[in-house]
């Protein structure tokens, strides 16, 4: 085996930033190992929850750092909303604990937790004006009366709803109500803000706009956000870290880049972005999956690889192939389908024997017939397959 392959076996992409997070945490202490450790705000330990016979959360453990924007991502039924409600205090976990800065959180009632929630349906109080909605938490906490108007106005300015201070909520659009809900939560300066799919009811354009605003808002106030969504694009756009939840288990917890380029499981690879799953046979440093084979490092046996469509390129016929470049893998296939996607096309390649790969090519022009494609071996990432269910 050429010595170079050892080097190339490692990822071609550097670890993103300096913040490598630990993933599944067992019994070890909450502090992550990193050059400048941000403090941990919330520790979730072995939380389990079931409704009747149905188990929704099966032993969730997660550390959330202060000031981070973390998204809990999952399909419907994965348990993400339940987890959020447990943190907020509307449900009690069957087992497990939640700690915030050295104190047990899950035994305190919701109105005593330094946690605020933005609900999916906004839950604005219809019988109170916008101002009184936002002031509600301050009044409940007994904030000094002279402070309240100032804080409310500042919160409304932050979400750009200042002119609507005296309005009745019924006159507001969905997006406007959502901003009010945000202001209402943030004005209390909680340690933690929970957002339960807050953008799901908005149309696509408004959604994108709100995503940008939310992100900059979070940076501005520095409050830890726990964001729940089923939309993986949204999760990738907004988060510092993503916690992928699947059927009550944490599948992977990593930064968006890490989770995209180095998914740990087949599910993670498929849920986030698109991918080609190559079920390969490893032998003598070569992995073979159907008509495709490439050089890689690892013990022999059956392995599953994930290859992102954007890593597949068209081979330019004019280029003279130098020696067999071990870092590249080439294959031929028939262009079965091509869908235009603006900046890139999604091309379906039929390799025969019902093996189909998808490639994302930038401006390929109209393709047809048999063409040759290539990808870097390092881009085929090894993944685990099969969950616990």
């Amino acid at each position, binding site marked *: 085996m050429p010595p170079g392959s050892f080097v190339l076996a490692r990822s071609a992409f550097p670890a993103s930033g300096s913040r490598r997070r630990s993933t599944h945490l067992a019994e070890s202490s909450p502090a992550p190992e990193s050059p400048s450790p941000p403090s941990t705000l919330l520790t979730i330990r072995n939380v389990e929850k079931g409704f009747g016979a149905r188990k929704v959360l099966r032993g969730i453990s997660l550390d959330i750092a202060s000031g981070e924007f973390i998204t809990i991502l999952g399909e419907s039924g994965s348990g993400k909303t339940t987890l959020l409600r447990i943190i*907020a*205090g*509307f449900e009690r976990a069957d087992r497990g604990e939640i700690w915030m800065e050295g104190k047990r959180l899950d035994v305190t*009632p*919701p*109105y*005593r937790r330094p*946690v*605020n*929630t933005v*609900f999916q*349906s906004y*839950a604005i*109080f*219809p*019988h109170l004006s916008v101002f009184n909605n936002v002031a*509600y*938490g301050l009044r*409940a*906490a007994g904030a000094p009366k002279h402070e309240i108007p100032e804080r409310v106005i500042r919160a409304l300015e932050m979400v750009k709803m200042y002119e609507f201070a005296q309005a009745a909520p019924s006159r507001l659009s969905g997006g406007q109500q959502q901003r009010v809900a945000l202001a*209402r*939560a943030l004005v*209390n300066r909680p340690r933690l803000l929970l957002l339960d799919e807050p953008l799901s009811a908005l149309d696509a354009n408004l959604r994108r706009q709100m995503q940008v605003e939310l992100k900059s808002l979070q940076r501005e106030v520095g409050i830890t956000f726990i964001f729940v969504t089923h939309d993986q694009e949204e999760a990738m756009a907004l988060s510092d870290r993503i916690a992928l939840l699947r059927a009550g288990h944490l599948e992977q917890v990593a930064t968006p880049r890490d989770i995209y380029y180095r998914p740990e499981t087949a599910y993670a690879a498929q849920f986030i972005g698109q991918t080609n799953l190559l079920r390969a046979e490893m032998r003598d440093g070569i992995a073979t999956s159907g008509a495709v084979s490439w050089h890689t490092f690892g013990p022999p046996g059956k392995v599953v690889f994930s290859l992102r469509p954007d890593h597949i390129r068209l081979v330019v016929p004019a280029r003279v192939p130098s020696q067999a470049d071990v870092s590249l893998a080439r294959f031929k296939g028939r262009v079965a389908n091509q869908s235009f996607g603006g900046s890139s096309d999604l091309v379906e390649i039929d390799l025969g024997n019902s093996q189909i790969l998808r490639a994302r090519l930038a401006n390929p022009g109209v393709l047809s017939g048999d063409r040759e494609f290539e990808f870097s071996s390092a881009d085929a990432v090894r993944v685990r397959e099969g969950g616990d269910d």
Partner: protein
Amino acid sequence: MTQPFRESRPRILLVYTALVFAFLYLPILTLVVYSFSGSGSGGFPPSTWTLSWYAQLFGDSDLWNSVLNSFLVAIAAVLIAITLGLPAALALDRAEFPGKALFRRLVLLPLILPGIITGLSLLMFFVSAGMHTSLLTVTLGHGTALISVATTEIFAGLQKFDRRQEEASLDLGANHWMTFWRITLPNLRVSLIAAALLIFTLSFDEIAVSFFLIGSDNTLPIEIWSRLRRGITPEINAISTLILVFSFILIFVWYRLRTRAESPEEPSASMLQSTLEGAS
């Protein structure tokens, strides 16, 4: 509003419906007409017209005493029914406990049970407890019978209420008591007023239960009843017309409140409808 479904022969149906409406309104119109009739209830059509019955009404102190009694009993009944119907509705909406189905049936039972049974069983109860029949016993009877109305009406209001608002309130730092006063109750305002109006009207007109629990002070329906037994007095037509107008106004207000609170897509549901749906 559902789209009307066109069929080929609505005309017969239309005529039939008109006849049914005529049937429903015949007695009411008769009453009103005869309250102005010179000869009282005799002769059709009335030969003379007069306002004397109404005039006679105003000098009738016994009658007005009974109106006052009815009024007091009705107010008290509203208070009892709502004070107990509100927690009952909350319990049915939120709490899970063994025997909940039985609890629900028991609370709603007086709604469908003939008044005589409620009245008699309470009479025997009061007698066993050594109490004499009086306006108090009537009030307790009305209150008991009408809790079911309050529960049904408030329960319907709770179903429409977004519980997330309570969660939001707790989330923002208000405890359960504060949440109840500042969020739950204001949102139930329409249901509570509607229930109060309804219970007031039902208590004011109530006769079956009152029949057995009445003491020496009469409520209005009982007073009218005892006069009817003695013979037809045309005054009755006049007071009945007045009661009619009064009830209409109250129910009209109730209906307006109900429909304003509802979304336009839903068919307007009345208390009974939701009861009969909910009782199953």
